[in-house]
């Protein structure tokens, strides 16, 4: 890796770190009574791998599925100078069925599965609409 690439990598990490920090702080503030219902308690995001330039995918176990699942959607749990602690968000369709990446989910659900990723391995971040977390659906008709 030449000097220019090293500089780019450092810039990426710096940007991602500052965005992750903002997300983490916003989520933390959301628990204060003054911001309840104003700020989102979970801001989901996708992280991009520096190796492949594709979304990072992690696997975990969801009790509701009783099997493993893969996801590219995460919630930040903790941030250090070198790494980020993430909760895996379970993607599902409008009927509640698990949607494997890279499908676009209707809903994201919190799970107990966690991963730690080194910030050095991340080159980008894309925030996702917080409304997707525990998004509700009404079924009007027979299948109610």
């Amino acid at each position, binding site marked *: 890796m030449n000097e220019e690439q090293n500089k780019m990598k450092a810039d990426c990490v710096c940007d991602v770190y500052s965005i992750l920090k903002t997300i983490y702080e916003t989520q933390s503030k959301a628990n204060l009574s003054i911001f309840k219902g104003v700020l989102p308690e979970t801001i989901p995001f996708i992280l991009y791998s520096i190796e492949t330039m594709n979304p990072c995918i992690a696997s975990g176990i969801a009790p509701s599925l009783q099997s493993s699942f893969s996801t590219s959607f995460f919630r930040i749990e903790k941030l250090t100078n070198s790494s980020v602690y993430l909760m895996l968000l379970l993607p599902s369709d*409008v009927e509640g069925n698990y949607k494997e990446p890279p499908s676009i989910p209707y809903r994201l659900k919190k799970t107990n599965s966690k991963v730690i990723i080194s910030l050095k391995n991340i080159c980008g971040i894309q925030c996702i609409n917080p409304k997707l977390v525990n998004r509700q*659906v009404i079924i009007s008709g027979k299948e109610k």
Partner: protein
Amino acid sequence: MKTIVFIGTNKSGSSREAIKAAERLGFFIVLLTDRKIFIENRLDFPDVHQMVLMELTNFDLLKENISKIQEQGKIIVAVLSFIDPFVHVAAKLWEKLGLTIVSSDPLLKMENKILTRELLKDLPVSPYFSKFKKDESMHTFIDNQVGRYPLIVKTPDSTGSKDVMLVKNEQQLVRSINNFLRKGAIEVLIEEYLDGPQYLIEVCVFNGKVYIVAVLEQEIEFFERFIVTGYCLLMDIEDAFHKEICETVSNILERFSFKNGSCHLEMRRINQQWKLIEINPRISGGAMNRIVELGFGINLVEETIKINLGQEPNFERKYSKFVYAHYITIEETGTLIKVTGRNRCFKFPGIEEVYIKPKKGKLLHPPLSMGDRYGYVLASSTNKEDAIRYAKEAAKEISFYLEPI
């Protein structure tokens, strides 16, 4: 180039089918519309040869556009409308061209509920009614209604249950009248509430001869408004019943001096006596043209066009079947994500057509007017109960997925 000008249309239903029928008959079709979305989705209207976006409530502007169309070399043979409140406007424009056999005056009286009531007030079909004028004393008016509840309150130009309220007492009556006045109404019509089986009668008149094309039983549900959720096309009706309907309808139409055109009447039968709920100078909207076509093989809008052109209509049935149209409404409010079950409906016998109206992203809610019915299932059979059962059972397969707001 023989041209038919249509004033307004809906995206689907009878008014749209009229355009398709006119195009099939070989005419050049011009649509004057005030719906920008139609121009934006121009490819959805391959049967319309020329579409003009304009303000439809401005009569002078309409005249101006008609002249422009003529200047383009098109020979206008008819100006038609199959939607409220433009049926009489179209006839009036046509009168200006000196071509029509359809007079606009009866159409105007039919479109205005108060004019209709006043015209028919001494006929047995007329229920108790009273009109409230904006500058009248509310107190005296309310006092005059004592002992007459429940009552129906509506505006003279109400359509599709939009401005029709049921009131059970004085307080509700005052509230309803004030509500309509706030919305800009100058007059409000109060009518006796009639309880009994309701029928819809599709009628055509050619050179004074009345044709009872179709008689349908209506299933009505009361949500916040009266909503028709089912139409049953009657395959055959007893001679005596048919004669009764024919006589009643003829008497009504005679009052209007209605000699050519089509209309539909909604009537209730109470203690062997027919009572008129309302009359409209056009075929019913929604699935009505399809219902009659499936049941009898008659394309009612096509025959109506022929009448308007002075041609003899043909109401001979090609076959006879009961057809039931079950309309779908929802009880919840939310943004539409998707609809499932349409294909499953066809697993049931007798299912002819399934139609879902709203597109993804539309905000759906419980019905406040007939326009809030979000689809229908049409079933046919030579047995009335079967047609009803098939349509209702199949409709249960349809599910609307909504995101709460």
